[in-house]
């Protein structure tokens, strides 16, 4: 069974801080994704990575960056946290880039920026 683990369930940070969200998957999946979920907006793609050291911008990349140095780990970085980045952050992985492969999600990190 696929396991996607996000390092923190809840996180509280201050505006201007640099914030790191970590995600690890244990199934040797090639693709990894970061989303944020907001009420009334659904899941929006921030960044994704289709292989180690490869990344591509999603729909809302502004204010974020990512790092994928190892296949199993995908990090989301908030360069200078702002209150509008308070949200639920979800990491997902997928075996390959084909459309019929479902994504597997972690349980999310609820991030509050004060």
């Amino acid at each position: 069974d696929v396991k996607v683990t996000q390092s923190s369930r809840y996180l509280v940070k201050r505006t201007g801080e640099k914030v790191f969200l970590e995600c690890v998957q244990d199934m040797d999946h090639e693709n990894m994704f970061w989303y944020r979920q907001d009420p009334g907006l659904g899941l929006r793609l921030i960044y994704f990575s289709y292989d180690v050291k490869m990344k591509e911008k999603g729909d809302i990349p502004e204010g974020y960056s990512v790092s994928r140095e190892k296949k199993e780990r995908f990090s989301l970085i908030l360069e200078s946290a702002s209150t509008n980045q308070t949200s639920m952050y979800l990491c997902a992985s997928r075996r390959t880039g084909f459309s019929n492969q479902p994504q597997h999600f972690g349980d999310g990190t609820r991030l509050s920026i004060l």
Partner: protein
Amino acid sequence: DQQVKQNSPSLSVQEGRISILNCDYTNSMFDYFLWYKKYPAEGPTFLISISSIKDKNEDGRFTVFLNKSAKHLSLHIVPSQPGDSAVYFCAASDPGTSGTYKYIFGTGTRLKVLA
């Protein structure tokens, strides 16, 4: 502009009856569609999918119907159970220009099954 729309934010259904969740999309290039279920404080879990070359896919109590001409899909749950109470997200697979197959998610429908 939202390419995948779930126009009903919430739905209440009596236990044992049919639940029908709807999803509309705008991009005819989407080649695969998926439904995810999400409980509070958990990540979304994959439920069922359908290829754009099919019009129906069934898995136990869950059936997804695709009407390509109307750019519409629906998820039927029969019979509905209280444990089905969750938020359901529709997603479409977008091959894009680089063939990396991103998902575009709808805004979700909260289903409440009443005992």
